[in-house]
């Protein structure tokens, strides 16, 4: 570890903190008001968009909201699948890439619609420019906006006063939230961001691949494409699906320290801003900060462990005539080095982004443990755009409930009583996630068609499987990429895992929002657990860690932990 490395990490944290309130205030303005932001221009734009789509902006109950969300997502999956299947007939395919095979097309469609962006395929040799832009890039916008919509709907349910009389409790309008997220938040930011990336060397063209002869006379073909426009939304929408196979490790996606910094910043900026926006909605910005503090604690812990682990020489290199002071550089880029690779790996797995600037599969055992645990904690450390706040608010409800049990009175959150039905839904939310991960990992680990895809033997092989299903169910999308996942078995099971990890969590969350929205608000009493102080932050952090750790510790012990000790003893597989 170096001072320069820590300095870069500190600067990153400082810039992120400075951006949190302004971004939060803007998000609050966009979603908490009946009127569109940006004055007359905004109002006219929104009216035109709604009219073009035939949407009436009426308030929806949680069932109507969830119904619209699910229908839209189903249409998205179908559209994305079809476009890949007819790629040969489409324009803007200068490399002449063929139609995508059905199971791979299903996997990719499910994966991009759910904001996962797990990639079983290799971009430069599979997807033509039109599919990249009009299917994958488009999903990057819509899936992030769907995440935002769910988060604000849940936030409304928790913070709104109960409706008067017999009026139904509502959570807002899905279509309005979706379109506002895309056109008032993501799209304008991406235009500026994409151009900034191009100015640093990220590609942006529709040209044929460039064939050239290298200095030593070898032939090299450079893949081209509209990369920057996709890169911008890939990061800002915490999608993470790379234009190229190597993702943000590819120099055409992430050419230098500046782009790398911007990419890491754009992963966290929306989830961080949302905590502040939520604080404003709850009428207590300190509550937003208390949630952010809990995320920040877990984040810093992850960065510290990952950086320390990667700064050590790899056991595979022990005893050779190789300098030990360079750390573990297998799978890492020289321009990023150890500090920025460890930081990026932590950021991308805390948020459910899944872009990578180094190969997690080649991380040390403990360095690779960090991203895996980050995902398994439920993608709540910042988390994906919207989905992260959703997960964290579920953890908040559980924390407040536990605090209520400790003092023996009915817990209330923001003045609303937490009752058995709410906690049943919260429990359902918490149980589905590990069920999907562990069941599929267990299946893959005992099946011949599962283990035949492994790239590494021994405990690292189990880590590859565990990571894959954690990443899928957590809607992260990063990988221990040695696993050859473009097979029928993996395409289908991982596709099912991403769908379950997205919609089986969104539905209980919206249901919680629906019941909470109905409840009357009671004034705080001396027995009310304060949710804006250090005690709350500690309790929340503890709940997140304990729920995750108890669930996954046995599996982690057999994977990365065993590997760490065996590696230290000089064993290779």
């Amino acid at each position, binding site marked *: 570890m170096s001072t320069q490395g820590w300095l870069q990490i500190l600067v990153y944290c400082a810039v992120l903190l400075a951006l949190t309130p302004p971004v939060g205030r803007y998000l609050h303005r966009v979603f908490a008001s009946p009127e569109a932001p940006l004055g007359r221009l905004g109002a006219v734009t929104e009216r035109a968009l709604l009219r073009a789509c035939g949407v009436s902006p009426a308030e929806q109950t949680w069932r109507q909201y969830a119904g*619209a969300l699910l229908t839209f997502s189903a249409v998205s999956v179908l559209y994305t699948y079809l476009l890949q299947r007819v790629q040969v007939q489409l324009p803007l395919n200068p490399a002449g890439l063929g139609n995508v095979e059905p199971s791979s097309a299903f996997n990719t469609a499910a994966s991009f619609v759910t904001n996962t962006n797990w990639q079983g395929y290799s971009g430069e*040799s599979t997807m033509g420019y039109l599919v990249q832009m009009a299917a994958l*890039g488009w999903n990057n916008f819509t899936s992030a906006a769907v995440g935002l919509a769910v988060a604000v709907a849940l936030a409304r349910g928790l913070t709104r006063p109960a409706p008067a009389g017999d009026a139904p409790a509502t959570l807002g309008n899905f279509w309005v939230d979706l379109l506002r997220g895309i056109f008032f938040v993501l799209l304008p930011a991406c235009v500026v961001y994409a151009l900034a990336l191009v100015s640093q060397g990220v590609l942006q063209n529709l040209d044929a691949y460039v064939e050239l002869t290298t200095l030593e006379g070898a032939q090299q073909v450079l893949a081209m494409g509209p990369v920057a426009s996709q890169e911008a939304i890939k990061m800002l929408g915490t999608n993470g699906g790379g234009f190229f196979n*190597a993702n943000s490790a590819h120099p055409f996606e992430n050419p230098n320290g500046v782009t790398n910094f911007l990419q890491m910043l754009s992963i966290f900026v929306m989830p961080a801003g949302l905590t502040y926006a939520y604080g404003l909605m709850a009428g207590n910005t300190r509550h937003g900060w208390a949630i952010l503090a809990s995320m920040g604690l877990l984040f810093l812990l992850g960065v510290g462990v990952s950086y320390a682990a990667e700064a050590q020489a*790899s056991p595979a290199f022990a005893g050779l*005539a190789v300098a030990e002071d360079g750390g573990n550089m297998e799978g890492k880029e020289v321009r990023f080095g150890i500090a*920025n690779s460890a930081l990026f790996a932590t950021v991308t797995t805390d948020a459910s982004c899944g872009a990578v600037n180094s190969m997690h599969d080649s991380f040390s055992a403990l360095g690779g443990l960090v991203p895996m645990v980050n995902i398994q904690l439920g993608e709540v450390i910042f988390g994906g755009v919207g989905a992260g706040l959703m997960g964290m608010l579920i953890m908040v409800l559980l924390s407040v409930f536990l605090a209520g049990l400790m003092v023996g009175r009915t817990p209330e959150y923001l003045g609303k009583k937490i009752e058995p039905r709410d906690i049943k839904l919260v429990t359902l939310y918490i149980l589905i996630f590990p069920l999907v991960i562990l069941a599929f990992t267990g299946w893959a680990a005992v099946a011949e068609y599962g283990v035949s895809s492994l790239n590494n033997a021994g405990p690292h092989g189990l880590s590859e499987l565990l990571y894959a299903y954690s990443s899928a169910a957590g809607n992260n999308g990063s990988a221990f990429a040695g696993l050859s996942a473009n097979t029928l078995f993996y395409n289908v099971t991982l596709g099912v895992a991403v769908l379950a990890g997205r919609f089986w969590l969104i539905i209980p969350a919206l249901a919680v929002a629906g019941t909470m929205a109905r409840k009357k608000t009671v004034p705080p009493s001396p027995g009310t657990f304060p949710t804006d102080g250090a005690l709350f932050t500690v309790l929340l952090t503890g709940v997140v860690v304990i729920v995750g750790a108890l669930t996954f510790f046995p599996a982690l012990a057999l994977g990365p932990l065993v590997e760490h000790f065996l590696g230290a003893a000089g064993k290779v597989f």
Partner: protein
Amino acid sequence: MLRTLLTSLRVTGLTVLLTGLLYPSAVTALAQVLFADKANGSLVKDDRGRVVGSALIGQAFTHAGYFWSRPSAAGAGYDALASGGSNLGPTSKRLRERVTADAARISAQHAGATHIPVDLVSASGSGLDPHISVAAARYQLVRVAAARSVEPARVSTLVDSMVEGRDLGLLGEPRVNVLRLNLALDTQFGAVH
């Protein structure tokens, strides 16, 4: 239900048009006007004006008179249509065997040198890393100078002048672009072929 489906289709159509087609096209047009060189791959030409590579994409070098790049797991090595890393883990036997062989080969050609800088025997994440560390460049300079029959001090001066610092003085790591360095070698000391 039918109404929701119809709305979904219309929202899909409109957003595909605006974010899937118009947005990338507009960014492409602006990028081509504002940053044409960067947007098209930062291509590098030699003294005769021939495109010999991209400043951002690494190439394999085997000649003793050129600085070598890192090992590459992209296809057969620096295949820009197959970017990616080795994905071999810290307890991988295959990784250990690869590094053992590479370290022995490299040590044999750098008699008297100390331990090999780790990046020179580690495959990058992209398989297309255009850079090596400053230490990896210094490690090779005696060999390069000998192969070109020039004073090591002159090659050393050239290496120093080619070191790229941290971006904005803060971000990333110091590094040397291998293709640019080798082009500069050819310019200053003549081609090796």
